[in-house]
């Protein structure tokens, strides 16, 4: 029998390119205050703080989590910084889950902020993630790595760049109803195809924006849930999996887990769904908030997580299967990462959106009949993946099966 852990409250700011009205830490504070207000809590009601912070080069203040301690009301409490690149926010939720389920603490604030446009050197910073001796002399970045992945995926399944272009069309339209989303609007497949080429087959509209903003989630044990939240989202499944740093070990027919298909996501989902007792994701999960910074990446996850067969996700998109209303599974009704990517907290925003759907607080994004939702996050060059499953009731989790 596991202890219940539930989401008490969530908060996110409006995301955009820049927020010149506040500093980085003031923006983090907006999220901490917002989540506390939403929960009806004061800082003394929080036992520990988990802080989301990805590469510090983006904002140019080394280890700015230290700068943020006061602003997120962590002084006098345990404070843990989490950093797994783009999966930071998902890893942070898992860290909070562990702190609560171990009974070390009763309530945990997960909070963070991001700003990616205060430097003009973002691609160079991302290039620094690559191996200094063997890879950094090449134009390798997240953009070009995903282009390399796409070359394998499209060829294997006989798909084209046109097939990938439906994801931003659907999601920017969905984001029109999300007051927090960065990019939103009506665009067409042709608009995507005619947007500037970045690295074949990726065009500008296949790629997420660099977003600024902040977000927070408060999680609690049974006692905290009783005191503060009559309708929590329970965490009923979780899994995090890491893979080799070496892209060349994964971009090969000899790979243990092929990056071209992002097979690591299948391993991660199996473990999460095993814990949650989910055997038919398409039938049992109503909303999927997937970490999809590129059009390719959402489709790969739908296939690897078992929502459809390999190579089928783009075609099913054309049929409306991933639509919020009238589809089979609502995929990224928020607009997803394609519309908003504040790297350090993107995984947290996915978790917030998935939890809100269970709590019935998703506003115009709300799906109907929601019992189970998932949030994913991906970090490094798909080197870290995690999946979190939220449910409307605490369902005793099972042992994972690998």
């Amino acid at each position, binding site marked *: 029998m596991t202890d219940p852990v539930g989401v008490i409250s969530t908060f996110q700011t409006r995301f*955009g*390119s*820049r*927020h*010149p*009205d506040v500093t980085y830490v003031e923006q983090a504070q907006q999220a901490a205050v917002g989540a506390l207000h939403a929960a009806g809590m004061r800082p003394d009601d929080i036992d520990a703080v988990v802080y989301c912070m990805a590469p510090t080069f983006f904002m*140019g203040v080394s280890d700015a989590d230290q700068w943020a301690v006061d602003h997120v009301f962590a002084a006098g409490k345990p404070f843990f910084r989490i950093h797994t690149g783009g999966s930071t926010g998902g890893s942070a939720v898992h860290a909070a889950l562990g702190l609560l389920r171990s009974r070390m603490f009763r309530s945990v604030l997960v909070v963070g902020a991001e700003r990616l446009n*205060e430097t003009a050197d973002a*691609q*160079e910073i991302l*290039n620094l993630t690559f*191996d*200094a*001796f*063997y*890879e950094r*002399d*090449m*134009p*390798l*970045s997240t*953009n*070009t790595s995903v*282009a*390399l*992945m*796409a*070359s*394998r995926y499209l*060829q294997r399944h006989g798909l084209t760049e046109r097939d990938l272009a439906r994801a931003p069309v659907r999601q920017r339209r969905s984001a029109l109803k999300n007051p927090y989303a*960065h*990019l*939103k*609007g009506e665009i067409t497949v042709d608009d995507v195809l005619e947007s*500037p*080429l*970045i*690295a*074949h*087959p990726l065009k500008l509209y296949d790629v997420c*924006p660099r977003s600024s903003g902040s977000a927070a989630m408060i999680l609690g044990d049974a006692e905290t849930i009783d005191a503060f939240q009559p309708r929590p989202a329970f965490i009923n499944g979780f899994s995090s999996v890491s893979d*080799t740093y*070496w*892209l*060349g*070990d994964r*971009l*090969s*027919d*000899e790979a243990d887990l092929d990056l*071209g298909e992002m097979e690591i996501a299948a391993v991660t989902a199996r473990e999460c769904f095993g814990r949650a007792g989910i055997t038919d994701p398409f039938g049992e999960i109503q909303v999927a908030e997937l970490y999809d910074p590129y059009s390719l990446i959402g489709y790969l996850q739908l296939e690897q997580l078992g929502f459809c067969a390999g190579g089928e996700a783009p075609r099913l998109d054309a049929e409306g299967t991933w639509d919020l209303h009238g589809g089979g599974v609502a995929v990224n009704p928020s607009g997803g990462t394609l519309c908003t990517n504040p790297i350090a907290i993107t995984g947290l925003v996915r978790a917030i959106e998935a939890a809100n759907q269970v709590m019935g607080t998703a506003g115009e994004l709300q799906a109907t009949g929601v019992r189970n939702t998932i949030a994913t996050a991906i970090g490094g060059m798909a080197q870290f993946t995690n999946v979190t499953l939220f449910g409307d009731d605490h369902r005793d989790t099972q042992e994972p099966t690998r």
Partner: protein
Amino acid sequence: MSTEPAARPVLHQELTLSYDYAIGEVAGTFFDGLRDGKILASTCSASDLAYLPPRAYCERSFEPCDGWTEAGEEGVIEASTVVVRGFEGKRPTPVAIAFVRLDGVDSAIANYVDGVDCSDIDAAVASIAPGTRVRVAFAEEREGRITDFSFELLDA
């Protein structure tokens, strides 16, 4: 689309940092090989795997890599792209790059693909599609750096 808030003053700073990364024995052996016109892969007798980039330790067998082998002069493209935008200080774009698994090696290594006509991007991409065979081309002047070699199409 997004709306941009009104401009407010910013504090401008420029940071200049420099590093001297220790190369170590394994990468040092590899780069010495490049100088001699050889691509050396580390091997593990326990797993029978040959690695590029070379490794000190084979995490699959839980044993140290205990040998070296010279990679084949040809290999197969496993993933490729033509990079068009987004990089300063590398080769001028558009430029072709690929991960190539050289003959006799179990993992792929990245480098530029020379001799690709990038005036037509679609044709360029088709010419370097996964599965295409390429050969290694060494620079005439070598400095013990990964850019001492690149790939070129067999019919180039």
